[in-house]
């Protein structure tokens, strides 16, 4: 079958690989109908996540049709149309039973690697480094899903792939980020980053009762989506100082909650931007916490900083004094997707949200190398790419070079 493989930094390729098979009783095999490139895949593309090996199949946002089930899977049958959550969770351990599925103790066969870096291991993830399980991902024609009796959710036929695909990661991730803010009526929420997760965080904050949401980015097309589709007020940090503007927009008090939907590859002008780039180049820090710093400083006293953005290792110059003296609440974590699948599917069915608004590109699976480059460099007003295995090309294959030179 065809699969998108990580072959090195800034090098993903389409490869012919064997089809997956059932390895454990609770496995299922899914034929992929839609899969997406996630912002966190860009961290893999740029080589910032350790323990990737060339040949690893990428992709953790996918959905499709069940084609085979193991003897331990009773709730799914061949032909079911399912969306699959990106964390792999057993459903039986202490954390799964506490609805903290992304902390499952039983799904990471390489838990020791994560323990060396983080002290303890979270759940295994699809296509996201060997430290997090080394599971083959879903940017392929078929994928093996472990604990298939716990993860995948059946979706009704009248909803399109584009409407339900993002239940696999970014919609629950944005929703959990907003939920972590403990939003009260009248609250103002500021969101750094108007990528797909940031957009879902904005939409979810409104769903959870926020009065105002202020979105911060530098790409006009993304700010436009935030304003037009999500009804957020917008700030372009190339034009204004976000901290000063947020202060003025909130009467000097600051937003009640701040969401960092940027993560480890933040971008900034001025001293800190240069400082982080130098330190990261010298391998003296692994992540660039630009948005996190701003969120901590901008947040009101006693407010909440919620971090759905991915950080992998070590960061520098975090204003911890501000966290302590302003009595901030910090909430973060990989998304407990399994917990949110049912309630968020209900929201989609009720028509309260149509997640397909974030999609900017539909491409055949084979165009993934071009799509990664385009998405990373925000070319062609790219916000979210959906890949379709088996889709016919209606034009010549674009080359990676066609995605242009990096902007940063």
């Amino acid at each position, binding site marked *: 079958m065809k699969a998108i493989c990580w*072959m090195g930094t800034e090098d993903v390729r389409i490869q012919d690989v064997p089809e997956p098979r059932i*390895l454990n009783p609770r496995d299922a095999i899914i034929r992929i109908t839609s899969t997406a490139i996630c912002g966190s895949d860009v961290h893999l593309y740029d080589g910032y996540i350790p323990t990737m*090996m060339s040949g690893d199949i990428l992709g953790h946002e996918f959905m499709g049709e069940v084609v085979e089930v193991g003897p331990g899977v009773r709730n799914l049958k061949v032909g079911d149309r399912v969306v699959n959550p990106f964390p792999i969770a057993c459903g*039986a*351990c202490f954390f799964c039973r506490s609805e903290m599925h992304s902390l499952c103790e*039983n799904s990471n066969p390489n838990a020791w690697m994560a323990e060396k870096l983080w002290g303890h291991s979270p759940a295994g993830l699809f296509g996201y480094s060997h430290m997090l*399980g*080394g599971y083959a991902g879903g940017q392929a024609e078929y994928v093996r899903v472990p604990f298939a009796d716990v993860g995948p959710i059946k979706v009704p036929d009248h909803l399109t792939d584009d409407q339900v695909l993002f239940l696999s990661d970014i919609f629950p991730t944005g929703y959990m980020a907003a939920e972590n803010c403990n939003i009260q009526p009248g609250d103002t929420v500021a969101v750094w980053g108007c990528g797909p997760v940031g957009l879902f965080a904005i939409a979810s904050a409104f769903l959870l009762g926020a009065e105002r949401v202020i979105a911060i980015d530098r790409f006009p097309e993304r700010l436009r989506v935030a304003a037009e589709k999500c009804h957020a007020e917008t700030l372009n940090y190339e034009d204004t100082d976000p901290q000063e503007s947020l202060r003025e927009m909130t009467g000097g008090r600051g937003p009640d909650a701040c969401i960092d939907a940027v993560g480890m590859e933040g971008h900034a002008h001025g001293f800190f931007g240069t400082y982080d780039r130098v330190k990261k180049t010298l391998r003296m820090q692994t992540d660039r916490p630009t948005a996190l710093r701003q969120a901590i400083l901008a947040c009101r006293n006693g407010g909440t900083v919620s971090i759905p953005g991915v950080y992998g290792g070590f960061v520098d110059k975090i204003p911890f004094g501000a966290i302590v003296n302003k009595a901030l609440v910090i909430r973060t974590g990989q998304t407990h997707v399994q917990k949110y699948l049912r309630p968020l599917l209900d929201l989609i069915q009720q028509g309260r949200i149509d997640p397909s608004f974030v999609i900017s590109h539909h491409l055949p699976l084979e165009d993934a190398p071009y799509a990664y480059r385009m998405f990373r460099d925000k070319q062609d007003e790219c916000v979210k790419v959906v890949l379709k295995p088996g889709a016919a090309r209606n034009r010549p294959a674009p080359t990676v070079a066609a995605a242009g030179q990096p902007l940063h």
Partner: protein
Amino acid sequence: MATDPAETTAGMIPPTPGYERSPGVEPPVLHPAPTQLAQRPRPFRVTPGRAVGWAAAGTALAAVFAPRRLANPAERNITLIAFVATVAAVDVAVNLRKTARSRISSRSHAYELLEQSVVVDKPPSECYAFWHDLRNLPRFMPLLESVEDLGSGRSHWVLNAPAGVRLEWDAQITRDEPGRLIGWRSLPNSNLAHAGVVRFEPAPGDRGTVVRVVAHYQPLMTLAGKRFARFLHSNPDARVREDLRRFKQLLETGEVATTTGQPSGPRSLVGRAINKWSQV
């Protein structure tokens, strides 16, 4: 614990925290294995390489520390020889001491202690019953080729250790308290002289069972080998920790999480080597 090796009964394990917590378990007597896997220290020898090293180090030290005013060539040579001789003497002394010390330690109480634990979300009785059925052990100890029950608490074990080493031993259950603990030790003529106990302690707050393994074993590797194995997460401590993790997975989920057999794109040479290693 006796510090003078002469006072220690040869082959006896010193008492450990694990045993102190389990009154009634006597420190088991270990017999020397027929194949001596623990590498003997190499006797100290003066090799040409070592002599060159002395000369180089002595000359360097002389260049730095010798009095500058020695104009007479004979005096300079004598000084140089004195420096080289001092370096050689210090090196010989240090090495003889090291050799002597390792001889003592390999003769008597050089057994290694291992302690690992895991929380399993099942009651102690269930954990005990699963472990007590010896047929279950190879399901979570992948290095075990077989365990054969010989009756009356005795069993025969075959283990395929990394690097093609095959270990066999007979074990005797020394203590068996249903729902609480199982103690065992290897019998004479074992490849792997060891003794251990696995305890099933109720976790606080009714959160299942703390399964804790405490064991003593005859050292299998040199110091360098041990460090290398630890780096690869393949030393005995790591192996037991992974065994316990798989034990937990089997009891809680009915299967062991794996990716062995899944597809991948072409691997690099290093990737293929790692895959090969991780499957032993």
